[in-house]
């Protein structure tokens, strides 16, 4: 795989058939195995940018490559394949409330068609990792916000993704729960070698390591040094 997991050149993202531009002429790269923050004020287009990384929004101009795939020309089948290799974490968790915690965690494995035994082994391992082994048979709505987000992180890690995209992952959590989530995500980067892209309105204070930081301002994307 190329050194850059995500590569954007003169990228323009817009809604309303190109009438409402959110990002304009942005050029940036995200390298394999790095932990990177993308920040910006509310409404600046952080989530929009993240959507374009997993193909929920097609760019109107420029080029965008994710995992070596041209997102402007990607077929439906290839997009499904790409998504199956991503780990995505949302601010509102996006868990399936009718499914148990364990089943939620192995959703990517279910989609990939893994057998029940592999699903159970992986679920056990991941739930232990996020300290939710006791809650395996509970349903998401029986858990606290912090616990639900840990399920979300476990789900994102279940298929050893090469890229983890996190959209305001601690936006709804208290400080303690947020710190647990950040730890888990740092571990994913350090131990699993996954590239982690975090979109957030501000970088949490616990991060004293100088991670790369992109900022969205006036429709442009700039690197903060």
């Amino acid at each position: 795989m190329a050194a850059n997991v995500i590569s954007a050149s003169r990228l323009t993202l817009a809604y309303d058939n190109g009438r409402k531009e959110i990002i304009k002429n942005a050029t940036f790269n995200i390298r394999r195995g790095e932990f990177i923050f993308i920040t910006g004020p509310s409404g600046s287009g952080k989530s929009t940018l993240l959507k374009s990384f997993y193909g929920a929004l097609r760019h109107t101009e420029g080029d965008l490559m994710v995992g070596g795939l041209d997102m402007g020309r990607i077929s439906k089948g290839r997009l499904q394949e790409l998504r199956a290799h991503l780990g995505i974490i949302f601010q509102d968790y996006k868990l399936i409330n009718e499914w148990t915690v364990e089943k939620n965690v192995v959703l990517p494995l279910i989609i990939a068609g893994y057998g029940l035994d592999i699903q159970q082994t992986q679920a056990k391992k991941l739930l232990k990792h996020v300290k939710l082994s006791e809650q395996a048979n509970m349903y998401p709505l029986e858990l606290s916000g912090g616990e639900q987000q840990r399920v979300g992180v476990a789900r994102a890690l279940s298929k050893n993704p090469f890229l983890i995209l996190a959209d305001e992952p601690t936006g709804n959590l208290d400080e303690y729960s947020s710190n647990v989530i950040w730890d888990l995500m740092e571990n994913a980067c350090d131990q699993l070698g996954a590239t982690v892209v975090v979109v957030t309105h501000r970088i949490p204070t616990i991060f004293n390591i100088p991670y790369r930081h992109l900022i969205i301002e006036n429709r442009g994307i700039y690197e903060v040094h």
Partner: protein
Amino acid sequence: MKSIKEHMMFILPLMAILLGMEFFLVFNRVTRNYEEKLKENYSILVVTSRPVRSSVIEKVDRRIVNVKSIKKEEIAKEIVDGLSQKGVEEILEAIPFFYTLNLSSYLNREEINKIAQKLLNYPVVKKVETFGESHRSKYNLFLFLKIIFWSFVSLMSMISIFLIVKQMEVWQMAHQERMKIMEIFGAPMMLRSGVLFRIAITDAVIATLLSVGFFIFLKYYWIPKSGIEFLIEKTDMLFGFLDVVVLLIVVLTIVVSAVFIVTLGNRESVE
């Protein structure tokens, strides 16, 4: 309670289609049976000036079958009583040759006239008589009822399919969040819609079982006690094992199509 109501909203239109379909199959069988009987009773009489081989008459039209010659003695039997041998011979000499023939299917008046005309085109054929006109009005009534019935079943099916699709949309809305999440994680359409297929197929099987149960009740319990002679005589035409297979295929086709209509109408939400 809400869930039962939603399932009933799906099962009832399916049952309406299945009952309509089964009644139509029964009606079709009754009509076909009546047609067969008419066909057996229906014959054409051909009068020729000299003897003709039955194969020659059969060649006139492929629908002509079972050509039989009527013996002159049989025709003259009533009028030759008391006549001398010579007189009888003269009468037999004067009588033309008679043939009866059947048709392979029950035809309308226009088609029969065409066959009669084809026969008359042969120089040896003097006269062609067709019978069975008295059955025609009854048969036409059957055909009319069949068309009315078919139209009614079609209309009812269309309304039912509309209701089925609407209910499917309600379920799709109810499971939209789950389907959306699965879509984000790369699930193909068939897997995302798995929940809809499961509900639809389960309800389709329930609707088929209820409809089959209704007809079994009619056939084995209600009709024998009803005292309606016509129905009692035709019980065997009412419901058969093959009908279960037909109904199941129809209902599964409808629900699977409904799921596809709804899911394809709400495809991948790439902005």
